[in-house]
């Protein structure tokens, strides 16, 4: 829909009000009991000892204009310097056509009192063609550099208003004025409270000449030390003076507390970035709850340009159609109360991998111990997930090979026992993989359907016994699917099960097809019968692309997993079994 707006679509999307933010996991250290998986979670995030979780909000002014016909579209990438090396800790969203942006997405960082933590901020102008791409995957080398700034985390934290303005430099010692960047630090509130809210407006002023306004809302939290921090914006509703926006889900981390004043501004979207203010008002969450209960509206006001401080009351009103306060448990709450991730692996044994005895084969096992791509993927992902799996027995399959009975199988056990797909520990998978290479001959075609159905069956069977297991299937493949439709059907059927599927593409093939299965761009998978995937359960990563970028394979693959897990549990109202301290 709206094909003619495809360029600005990214700019019209909602930010910060998403339903399933899993990012609050690291704040909940207080509630977690002792547990291997929890310890591992913290260690893998580089968190040891005492720390305070800090959130950085960023804004800039007078940025350099790099675009010719419009203004720059800036994004900030934040790095921390550890042992001399830069490590990326987060990115903001991209703001369209704005030289004085206020970013909504926060970057969190663990503040260690006893360590000097140098931070580097780099601002980039993002090319239009990346607008619908998740910001994590944007290649920075393809973007225009707008300047960088650096400081030490404690410098920001010790400022009275917790905010520090830095001059942007070109990074080569040049003295050109590239504008400034303001960083504000705030301690994260450890809270599981979230509010789901539906906002609507009526009788908004019309700002467009040929059609009606295209309104969206921006909500900012007023801060004690002065000013306000944007916490979310809604999607744009086109050509409508009585818009209803999709439900927003705001956590206490975002809005502070129920009495903290929030500034709600309504803008008319303009693709050139100069969104015109339709009206604004100030209400706390408690006020909004009252509006909901009384079913009454609040009038917008607009600051008059002629009389200082005078505000004109508008006819346009804000209504609250839905207001629910919920407790939302984090990934760690589940893991620490005994929920498990159960790991499964499926390896591609099709002939396109090349003869395993030849060194240029993707399946070539090097005597020197250097791992091939399949081994790398198994090791890297297995090493992380095994901590969340109590018995460490993993089903391992192969597909696309001729087995000892002479037939091509699209789901055979890697272990030598035909009735027992499970092997022990990650080493067990590695061993079974190497043996299988000797025992089968590579064939084809590449079919995922049977492997996915098998994993779905196991996930479904677990539901008879208990609800605290979640399954993760890793499929490693070198190529193009023959059964794309059958795979989609299998994925749609599996989408309501406690299952996530990670697909790693190895070798040089074109993996366009896999991107279709990974519904990252908001398109939900659809089967030929019209059933639609309940949720996105697939994450695809091409090994070649990961190795050229800055994030590791594991990060790229597992990044969405906690969210997919939470999405499943929350949707069904499954709560952690033992209550942790609130």
């Amino acid at each position, binding site marked *: 829909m709206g094909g003619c707006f495809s360029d600005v679509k990214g700019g019209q999307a909602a930010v910060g009000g998403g339903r399933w933010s899993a990012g609050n996991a690291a704040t909940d250290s207080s509630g977690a009991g002792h547990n291997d998986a929890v310890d591992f979670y913290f260690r893998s995030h580089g968190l040891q000892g005492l720390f305070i979780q800090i959130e950085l909000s960023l804004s800039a002014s007078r940025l350099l204009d790099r675009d010719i016909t419009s203004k720059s579209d800036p994004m900030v990438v934040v790095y921390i310097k550890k042992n001399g090396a830069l490590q990326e800790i987060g990115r903001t969203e991209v703001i369209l056509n704005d030289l004085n942006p206020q970013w909504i997405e926060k970057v969190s960082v663990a503040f260690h009192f006893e360590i000097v933590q140098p931070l580097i901020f780099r601002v980039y102008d993002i090319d239009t063609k990346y607008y619908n791409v998740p910001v994590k995957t944007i290649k920075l080398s393809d973007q225009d550099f707008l300047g960088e700034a650096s400081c030490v985390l404690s410098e920001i934290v010790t400022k009275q208003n917790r905010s520090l303005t830095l001059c942007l430099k070109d990074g080569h010692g040049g003295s050109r004025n590239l504008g400034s960047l303001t960083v504000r630090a705030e301690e994260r509130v450890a809270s599981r409270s979230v509010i789901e809210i539906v906002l609507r407006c009526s009788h908004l002023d019309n700002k467009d000449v040929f059609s009606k306004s295209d309104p969206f809302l921006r909500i900012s939290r007023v801060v004690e030390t002065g000013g306000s921090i944007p916490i979310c914006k809604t999607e744009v509703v086109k050509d409508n003076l009585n818009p209803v926006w999709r439900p927003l889900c705001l956590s206490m981390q975002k809005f502070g507390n129920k009495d903290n004043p929030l500034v709600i501004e309504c803008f008319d979207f303009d693709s050139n970035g100069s969104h015109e203010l339709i009206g604004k008002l100030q209400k706390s969450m408690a006020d909004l709850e009252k509006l909901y209960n009384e079913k009454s509206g609040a009038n917008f006001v607009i600051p008059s340009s002629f009389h200082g401080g005078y505000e004109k009351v508008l006819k346009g009103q804000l209504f609250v159609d839905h207001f629910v306060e919920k407790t939302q448990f984090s990934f760690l709450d589940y893991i620490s109360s005994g929920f498990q991730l159960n790991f499964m692996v499926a390896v591609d044994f099709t002939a396109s991998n090349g003869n395993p005895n030849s060194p240029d084969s993707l399946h070539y096992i090097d005597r020197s111990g250097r791992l091939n791509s399949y081994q790398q993927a198994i090791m890297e992902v297995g090493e992380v997930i095994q901590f969340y799996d109590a018995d460490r027995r993993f089903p391992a399959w192969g597909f696309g090979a001729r087995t000892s009975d002479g037939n091509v199988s699209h789901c055979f056990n890697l272990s030598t026992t035909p009735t027992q797909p499970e092997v022990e520990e990650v080493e067990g998978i590695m061993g079974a993989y190497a043996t299988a290479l000797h025992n089968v001959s590579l064939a084809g075609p590449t079919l995922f359907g049977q492997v996915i159905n098998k994993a779905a069956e196991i996930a479904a069977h677990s539901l008879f*016994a208990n609800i605290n297991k979640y399954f993760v299937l890793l499929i490693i493949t070198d190529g193009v699917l023959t059964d794309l439709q059958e795979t989609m059907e299998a994925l749609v059927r599996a989408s309501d099960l406690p299952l996530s599927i990670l697909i790693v593409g190895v070798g040089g093939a074109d993996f366009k097809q896999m991107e279709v299965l990974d519904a990252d761009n908001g398109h939900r998978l659809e089967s030929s019968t019209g059933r639609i*995937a309940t949720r996105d359960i697939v994450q695809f990563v091409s090994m070649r692309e990961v190795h050229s970028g800055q994030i590791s394979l594991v990060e790229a693959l597992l990044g969405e997993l906690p969210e997919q897990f939470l999405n499943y549990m929350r949707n069904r109202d499954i709560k952690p079994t033992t209550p942790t301290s609130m």
Partner: protein
Amino acid sequence: MASTNFASRTIEITVISGENLQVRGKPINSDLFVTVRSDLQNQNDSVSTKINRNGAGFPRWNEKLVVDLPMHAAFVTVDVCRRVSSGRKVKIVGTARVPVADFVAGYLPESHLQFLSYRLRDERGERNGIVNLSVRVKVAAGIEVSLLQKQGVGIPVPVPERKFHGGGGVVTGIPIWNVGYRDRF
């Protein structure tokens, strides 16, 4: 009802929400409600939700409907409707046909809550939105259920390949462990 020879089962369908509902490419702003019935019942026997007044094509009903499903019913028909000409006439905006096999398939525990979403199509067959449902089959006392559960826990049943018609969108290959299928013979 046509199904006098066979027992029926009770299902709870919660109509959660609609997404991107459109009439001729434009989001629907008018008041919408949803009706649900099996393919063996006619429109008059359907149960319906209350009217939702949310606009912009993303209505939320969140309403639980109880439907009596004859054992040999193959589909549940979900219609998103609106009232026209001062509320006297009902017009169907979009329809989804939900195969019964999607929620009684034997490899899940009976009474397991399932979240299912379906494509809506208008009377001309054009896609015009998505409807999100949750379905729970009420467990009726009887041999059928316990048998099924035993089978489910015991031996893993291989998932047979399903075949689909290209255009009609009707499931023809129904798994052998499917209850509805067994009852037909």
